[in-house]
C-alpha cells in the first residue's frame, strides 16, 4: 500500500495564477476567512457551523509521513486524522456545549493567523472558489508559556449558496507528520 502516493491536490496542480488580491472575489474570500477565524477564536463554534459551513461540507486532515522528495509531500491517501462531514462537525460542537467536554474545559486559548490567501475560480462552476491560505495556530493551555504552534495550508473550496459563501471543502495540510498538540478539539 505504500507504493501509492498522494497526488498533489487538484488545487495545487492548477497552474492558473491566483486572482489578484484586489479582485472582488479575493476581497469577499478574505472577509469570509477573517469572520470565520473570529468566530472560532471567540469560541462561537455553533455560529460558525450554522452560518458559514455548507451542509455538504467535507472537512479533512490527512495523515502525513516523511518521504523522499521524489515521492511528493507524504500525505497518505485515504488516511486521516480528521474526516468530517456536517453531522460529525455538529457532534463535536454539541459535545463542547455539554459540561463534560473535559479536554477543552477550561478551554485552551487558540488563535488563527491567516495569511497568504490565494483565490482561484473553478474552471466550470461559477459558484465555486478554490482558496489556498496559510494558517498558523497558536495555542496554550493552563499556565503554559511555551505555546503549541501548528502550521499548514488550508485548501478550501467555498460555494455560493443563496448568495453567501459557505465552506464546502477544507483539506488541512499540516506541516507535521506527528501531531504535537494535546488534542485536535480545535477547528482549523
Amino acid at each position: 500500500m505504500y507504493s501509492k502516493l498522494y497526488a498533489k491536490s487538484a488545487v495545487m496542480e492548477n497552474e492558473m495564477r491566483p486572482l489578484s488580491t484586489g479582485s472582488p472575489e479575493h476581497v469577499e474570500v478574505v472577509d469570509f476567512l477573517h469572520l470565520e477565524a473570529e468566530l472560532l477564536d471567540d469560541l462561537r463554534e455553533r455560529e460558525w457551523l450554522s452560518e458559514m459551513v455548507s451542509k455538504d461540507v467535507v472537512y479533512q486532515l490527512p495523515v502525513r509521513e516523511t518521504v523522499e522528495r521524489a515521492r511528493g509531500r507524504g500525505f497518505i491517501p485515504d488516511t486521516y486524522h480528521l474526516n468530517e462531514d456536517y453531522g460529525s462537525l455538529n457532534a463535536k460542537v454539541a459535545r463542547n456545549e455539554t459540561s463534560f467536554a473535559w479536554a477543552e474545559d477550561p478551554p485552551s486559548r487558540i488563535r488563527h493567523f491567516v495569511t497568504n490567501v490565494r483565490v482561484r475560480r473553478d474552471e466550470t462552476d461559477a459558484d465555486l472558489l478554490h482558496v489556498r491560505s496559510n494558517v498558523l495556530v497558536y495555542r496554550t493551555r493552563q499556565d503554559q508559556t511555551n505555546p503549541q504552534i501548528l502550521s499548514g495550508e488550508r485548501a478550501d473550496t467555498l460555494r455560493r449558496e443563496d448568495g453567501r459563501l459557505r465552506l464546502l471543502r477544507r483539506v488541512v495540510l499540516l506541516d507535521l507528520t506527528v501531531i504535537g498538540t494535546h488534542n485536535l478539539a480545535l477547528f482549523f
Partner: protein
Amino acid sequence: MTAPTLTPRVEQLMNQIETGLDRGLIPASIYGDPQVYQTELRNIFGRCWVFLAHESEIAANGDYVVRRIGEDNFIVVRDEQGSINVLFDACRHRGVQVCRADSGNTSHFRCPYHGWTYNTTGELVGAPLWRNAFGGMSKEENGLVKAAKVDSHHGLIFATLDPSAPSLRDYLGGMGWYLDLVFGLDEGGVEVIGAPQRFVVDANWKSGADNFCGDDYHLGTLHRSVWEIGAFPVPFRENMMGYHIQASPGHSLSFSMAPDADEPGPKFFGFPEDVAERFTSGNRISPEQLEIARRSRVFVGNVFPNFSILALPMTEDGAKHAPTGVLTVRTWQPKGPGQIEIFNWFLAYKSMSPEQKDRAYRAGLGTFSVGGSFEMDDTEPWITVGRTGRSVAAELLDFELNYQMGMPGIGIAKPVDDWPGPGITYWTRYEEGVQRNMYRFYAQMMRAPKGEWPKLTFSGQ
C-alpha cells in the same frame, strides 16, 4: 553492558509497589521519576516483546515501516524471501540513520554518509570503491543489528531485544487466548486501514496501559459527553456489567457483557450483522471463545508493556449513523518520563465490505483518535497523573495511587470460578485487579537480573 543495578530510589519504589499492592497502593512517583524511566527503557522496553506493526502494512516484499522499541527506531521490513526483519536503524560504520522515510518499498538501504549499503535482511552488501577502502573486512560482521527475536501472532508483529526472552507464545501466555478471540474471529483475519496516526501527549506511557487494562469505571465521569451526543449505545451502569480478566502476569483485559446471554444490545463488539454471521460460520477459534465474542459489547485489553486493543460499537454522529464495531490497536511509545507518542491503528476484518470499512473508520476517527470525542478526554487526566508523578510533593508526602476497587470488602466485584478462558476473572467491572496484575509484573521485570525472567503463569494455573 550488563543490566545496570537499580538505583536506591528505584529499588525503594519497586519495594513499595510490591508491599503496597496487597493494600491496593502504588507510589505515584513511578509516574514521573527519571531514574524509574531510565530503568524502564532498559528492563521493560529493552527486554519485553513489543508490538511494532501488522503484517498487512508490509504486504509486499521490500515493503518497510519504521517503528520504535522504547525510544529507538527499528526498520520493520519484508525481505525478498517474504520474511520479516527488524533492524536497528543505525549504520554499522558511524551509526547514521539508513532509512530516511517513514515507510516505503525498497531493495536496499544506503547510508548517506559514506554509502554503506545493506539489503532488506540487513546484510552489508557494499560501499563505494569497496576494495580500496574495505577490501578484506568482513561483511558478515557489519550488517545492520537485528532484534534478538521477531515473531507474529495473527499478523501482529512483535520483537524483543533480549536473547534470553521466552517465545512470543509463552510471553503472551493466557493473553494469547483472548487475542485469538478478537483477531481470529473472522477466518480471513484483519488488516490495517491506511496507516497509523501518530500524536504526542505529555503523559507517562503507563497511564495508557493502565487505562486499557480495564478502567471501565472512568466512562461514567470522563466520557459522560459521549452519551449526550449519542456516540456509544450502552448506558454507563449497564456497561459496568462484564468480566475483568488477568489473563497472565502483566496482561489484562475486560469484557462488557450483559448478565443475561440473550439480552438485546450490541453483540460481537457491535460489528454489523452480516459480518457477525461470517464470524459464526468461519473462524479460527473455539466455541467458548466464539460465545464470549458474541456476548461482548466491548473488549479492551493491554499486552504488557504498551500494546492496547479495543473493540466496541461507536459512532461519530449519533444523529445520522447507528454505532458500529470499531477495532483499534495502539502503542504508548515512551518519549521521556512525561511524554508519549501514541501510534493508533484502525483495523478491519478483511472480509468486510468497503462501505463497512469506511463506516468503521469514520466511527473510529470520530471517537478513538487525536480528534475523537473519547480519546481527547482520555489524555486530559493522564497529563496531570504525570505531573503528580514528577512532583516533589508526591515524594515528600509519600503519595500513593489507589487501586483498591474490587478488593475483598470493597465494592461488589467477585471472583468467577467457571470462566472458560485462562486467567483470573471477576464479574462486574468495578474492579482494579486488572491493573494490579500489570504493576505486579512490572515490578518483577524491573528487578529481574539480566538473563532471568519472572514467572509467566499464575501459581496454580
